[in-house]
């Protein structure tokens, strides 16, 4: 470890870092703009100047940019040197000559990196008397606002958007002091990671447009650490509330999971919480007055819960506590997944593979660090966006690592590495049904049916381990691709294989496993990552419960069934006629959900439950990482409690055991762990609800939270008693412990002098490293070191059938989400439903793009406008999946098409 002297104090620091990282990691407030822990340094903003001395005798020193200097043993620098300080103040003063007088109307204000640094350098009075430069703004779509006057030319936006995230449509234009950051012309930003601009840009040039609709300053939000609800990756988020509305989502750093970034679905898809469509009343249908109070409901429930068979239908988007509570209510044998057979089968297979523990499943960080990636038949761009971003980093970093082998450039030196690496890329093979934006950085792109992709996978496995069977009747391209991919995978030390359930193919999962297993040896540590559909799909799969079809079979036999359906719109997952039959056979249907949907319409008893923002819950992500999402605010509507609390009360009624008190999530998890050993360790996911620091809770509100005595004064001038949180160590007030909370309990990032999100530096062990005390979340799958057993079973090649088409889904990042679609901006970006055929198939049906195609499946006929594509194989029809109002279809079956 090199020893360096900062202002004559010796420090042991990590080699390979730059001076800025070192200073920030040591807790020294050194201002910076253009350096970003995830993107490295380019030395553009000149803000991070320090004095560097030749040796102990040198008293003059030179001013250097700390972000562009490596640490060296015995290096002497000064941060507090008056010359360096004056330099930094001067830089800010220059930046401010053109900066608009906007803070009061700037959405960045109060969480502004530029404000932080301006105050830090001490610049406070304008001496420059001349005019300010101005720019016109652009319309950048419904999610991001543009106010170009505020730009300080740090280049972070384009470096993130283009270099880091691979976007094309944002760039820097013009020259000298006129540089302009925007699009070539007005228009919607195309990258699904555009929302990160709001956090990456140190100023208010790019801001969150959805927040603007109900603007609140950072200091006025009631925040809690939460988990994104919109895909299976479980990105960590900070959710903020004001006046009973969820108002913003920002990234919550977790070095193992999402790091510094979120996708736009996760960032903006929160508005369902505030939707008009929320269920707010308990309803007992088929009576004169359907809306009832809690007491009436409690009096009614014994009639339907006792003396009848109760079955529970669980949910992949409800927390594990709620699913467990339903298992307890209905009994383990009477708990079903609410997903179709095929999906349950696939997810079970994945859960089995992971719990066998023969192959490591990588975190997103490990995917970023992979040196070769094979995506086998999963459209991760749409189904797991941040994973696609991680894959891109793997490709870029591998290229940079190759450069570093030849030229000794430090890893943080972004500009130099980019210059040396030029267009070279690490290895990515991307296989998906349709082409994907990831193809651009992929060395090999394959498009085809799931079975054909699986065959390619099995051929790769065969080439890696020739005891495995070869694929027979393989086409030349398949053989060629397999050779190429297997050679590249063999060169890697940490290859990652990614697949998932979205194409509905079990063969893909088997093939991915065989490849990973064949790669594994002493030197090579492959990772096998799976993508699932929903935020708690893995948790539900781990219960091992059976599918919806089994539940249907029960109600068809038994006329006296009360079905309790937990947060699950069955019509989104199961073909409509099966669901209709199910409801017609149930004696009573109790539905607990957050939003009205087709399933809640069928409920005899409808119970409103809390969303992630109004309740606590633990979610298990695609790698089996259990993470707690904390309640952000207490709904003004008291009835909105977590589903597990309702279900617990129902269990009390049904089993006639005494209640005593409300249940805590902690108790639920402890019970879960006892009853189901596969969840072992989950109870330790967060500190217990009784956890206190020096007797204090951790406040959800900042010390500057305003309006406490006026917010509700219009209703009653006497302030109500502060709300109590019995379920967590967080409080709903500003009072409590102000130091560093344990990582799972960080409600927002703030440090003295750092009001912006850059305060995260203070919460990390080192910049870009783990949070102090370790990143939150507990991985439930452990490697066992057992010898993997290959699956082998190779499917037949796909061949088109006469007059039939193979039905496959296409998921949309914007549009396929059940909840995110309630955000207006996301709905506006959601595509219209459509069917896709190959140009030849369309011609054979005598149809062209835009015509209405009728698709006959699941005993119904659906009509979709047709799109023809040249990159699609014949014999397949692809339908947009999961769009609002669309039925679930039997994917992977043969359907009839006609004009």
């Amino acid at each position: 470890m090199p020893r360096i002297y900062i202002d004559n104090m010796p420090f042991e620091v990590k080699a390979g870092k730059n001076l800025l990282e070192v200073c920030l990691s040591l807790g020294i407030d050194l201002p910076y703009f253009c350096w970003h822990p995830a993107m490295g340094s380019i030395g553009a903003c000149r803000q991070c100047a320090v004095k560097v001395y030749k040796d102990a005798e040198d008293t003059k020193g030179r001013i250097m940019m700390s972000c562009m200097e490596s640490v060296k043993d015995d290096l002497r620098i000064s941060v507090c040197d008056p010359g360096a300080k004056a330099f930094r103040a001067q830089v800010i003063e220059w930046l401010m000559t053109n900066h608009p007088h906007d803070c009061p109307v700037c959405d960045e204000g109060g969480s502004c990196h530029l404000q932080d640094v301006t105050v830090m350098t001490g610049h406070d009075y304008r001496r420059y008397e001349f005019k300010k430069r101005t720019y016109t703004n652009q319309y950048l779509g419904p999610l991001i606002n543009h106010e170009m006057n505020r730009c300080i030319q740090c280049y972070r936006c384009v470096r993130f958007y283009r270099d880091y995230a691979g976007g094309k449509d944002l760039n820097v234009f013009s020259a000298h002091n006129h540089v302009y950051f925007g699009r070539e012309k007005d228009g919607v930003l195309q990258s699904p990671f555009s929302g990160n601009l709001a956090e990456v840009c140190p100023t208010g040039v790019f801001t969150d447009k959805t927040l603007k609709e109900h603007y609140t300053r950072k200091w006025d939000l009631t925040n809690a650490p939460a988990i994104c609800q919109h895909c299976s990756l479980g990105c960590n988020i900070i959710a903020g509330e004001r006046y009973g509305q969820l108002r913003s989502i920002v990234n919550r750093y977790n070095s193992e999971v999402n790091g510094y970034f979120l996708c736009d679905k996760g960032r903006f898809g929160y508005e369902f919480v505030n939707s008009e469509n929320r269920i707010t009343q308990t309803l007992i249908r088929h009576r004169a007055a359907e809306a009832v109070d809690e007491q009436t409901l409690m009096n009614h429930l014994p009639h339907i819960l006792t003396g009848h068979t109760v079955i529970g239908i669980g949910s992949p988007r409800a927390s594990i506590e709620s699913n467990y509570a339903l298992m307890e209510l209905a009994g383990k044998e009477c708990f079903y997944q609410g997903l179709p057979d095929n999906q349950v089968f696939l997810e079970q297979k994945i859960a089995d593979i992971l719990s066998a523990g023969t192959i490591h499943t990588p975190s997103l960080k490990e995917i970023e660090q992979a040196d070769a990636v094979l995506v086998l038949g999963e459209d991760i761009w749409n189904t797991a966006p941040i994973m696609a971003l991680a894959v891109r980093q793997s490709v870029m970093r591998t290229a940079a690592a190759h450069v570093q082998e030849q030229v000794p450039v430090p890893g943080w030196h972004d500009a130099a590495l980019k210059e040396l690496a030029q267009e070279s890329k690490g290895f990515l093979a991307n296989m998906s049904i349709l082409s994907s934006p990831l193809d651009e950085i992929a060395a090999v792109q394959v498009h085809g049916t799931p079975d054909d992709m699986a065959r390619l996978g099995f051929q790769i496995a065969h080439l890696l381990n020739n005891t495995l069977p070869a694929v027979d009747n393989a086409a030349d391209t398949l053989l060629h691709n397999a050779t190429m991919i297997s050679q590249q995978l063999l060169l890697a030390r940490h290859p990652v294989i990614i697949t998932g359930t979205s194409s509905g193919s079990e063969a893909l999962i088997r093939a991915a496993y065989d490849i990973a297993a064949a790669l594994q040896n002493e030197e090579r540590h492959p990772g096998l990552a799976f993508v699932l559909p929903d935020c708690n799909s893995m948790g539900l799969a781990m219960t091992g419960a059976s599918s919806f079809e089994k539940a249907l079979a029960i109600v068809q036999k038994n006329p006296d069934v009360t079905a309790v359906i937990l947060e699950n719109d069955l019509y989104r997952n199961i073909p409509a006629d099966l669901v209709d039959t199910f409801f017609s056979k149930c004696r009573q249907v109790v539905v607990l959900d957050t939003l009205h949907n087709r399933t809640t319409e069928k409920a005899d008893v409808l119970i409103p439950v809390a969303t992630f923002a109004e309740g606590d819950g633990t979610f298990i992500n695609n790698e089996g990482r259990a993470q707690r999402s904390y309640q952000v605010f207490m709904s003004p509507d008291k009835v909105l409690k977590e589903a597990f609390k309702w279900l617990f009360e129902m269990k009390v009624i049904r089993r006639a055991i005494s209640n005593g008190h409300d249940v805590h999530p902690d108790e639920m998890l402890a019970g879960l762990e006892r009853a189901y050993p596969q969840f072992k360790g989950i109870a330790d996911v967060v500190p217990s609800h009784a956890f206190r620091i020096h007797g204090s809770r951790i406040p959800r509100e900042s010390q500057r939270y305003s309006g406490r005595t006026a917010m509700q004064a219009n209703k009653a001038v006497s302030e109500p008693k502060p709300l109590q949180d019995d379920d967590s160590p967080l409080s709903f007030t500003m009072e409590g412990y102000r130091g560093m909370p344990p990582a799972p309990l960080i409600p927002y990032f703030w440090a003295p002098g750092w009001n912006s999100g850059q305060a995260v530096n203070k919460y990390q062990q080192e910049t870009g490293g783990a949070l102090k005390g370790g990143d939150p979340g507990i991985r439930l799958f452990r490697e066992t070191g057992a010898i993997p057993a290959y699956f082998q079973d190779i499917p037949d090649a796909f061949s088109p059938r006469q007059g039939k088409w193979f039905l496959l889904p296409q998921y949309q990042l914007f549009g396929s989400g059940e909840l995110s679609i309630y955000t207006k901006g996301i709905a506006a970006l959601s595509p219209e439903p459509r069917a896709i055929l190959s140009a030849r198939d369309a011609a054979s049906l005598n149809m062209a793009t835009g015509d209405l195609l009728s698709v006959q499946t699941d005993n119904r006929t659906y009509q979709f406008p047709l799109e023809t594509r040249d990159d699609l194989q014949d014999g397949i029809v692809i339908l947009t999946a999961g769009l609002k109002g669309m039925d679930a279809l039997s994917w992977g079956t043969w359907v009839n098409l006609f004009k």
Partner: protein
Amino acid sequence: MISHLRTMWLVFLHLFHKRETIQYPEEKVAMRPRWRGRIVLTKDPDGGERCVGCYLCAAACPVDCIALQAAEDENGRRYPEFFRINFSRCIFCGYCEEACPTYAIQLTPDFEMAEYRRQDLVYEKEDLLIDSQGKYPGYNFYKMAGLSAGVKEKGKGENEEAPVDIKSLLP
């Protein structure tokens, strides 16, 4: 003894001094303009609402008795959708006025705010907004800001150059 007599004498003399006590409410007090009393929201010289909903007053308020919600009109001009001051909590410290970047919120020399019901001390925007510039005439924030919010176009502000033509490479 002497001291007692002296004190009594001094008190006696006060009978002939000018009286400090006034016959309030028949007689009114002369208030200075900077006296910190009832808070108002003022308007800019063009008659627009000055408050831009920046929340700085609310953050500055030591008793947290200001609550508001910012909204935006079709031109992008910010204004408070509601603005509430709970005067039963206000300590008339004037921090809000000091924090306000637009001169919108001002304390006035009116202290006659007694109410029988505490609830009536909760003032909404309708009660606070006055049709005047108050103590600081002439200031219009949106003329100074870089933002174009229907008051002036980009580059038309006093201290602004015309917007950059990004297609031009001339210096």
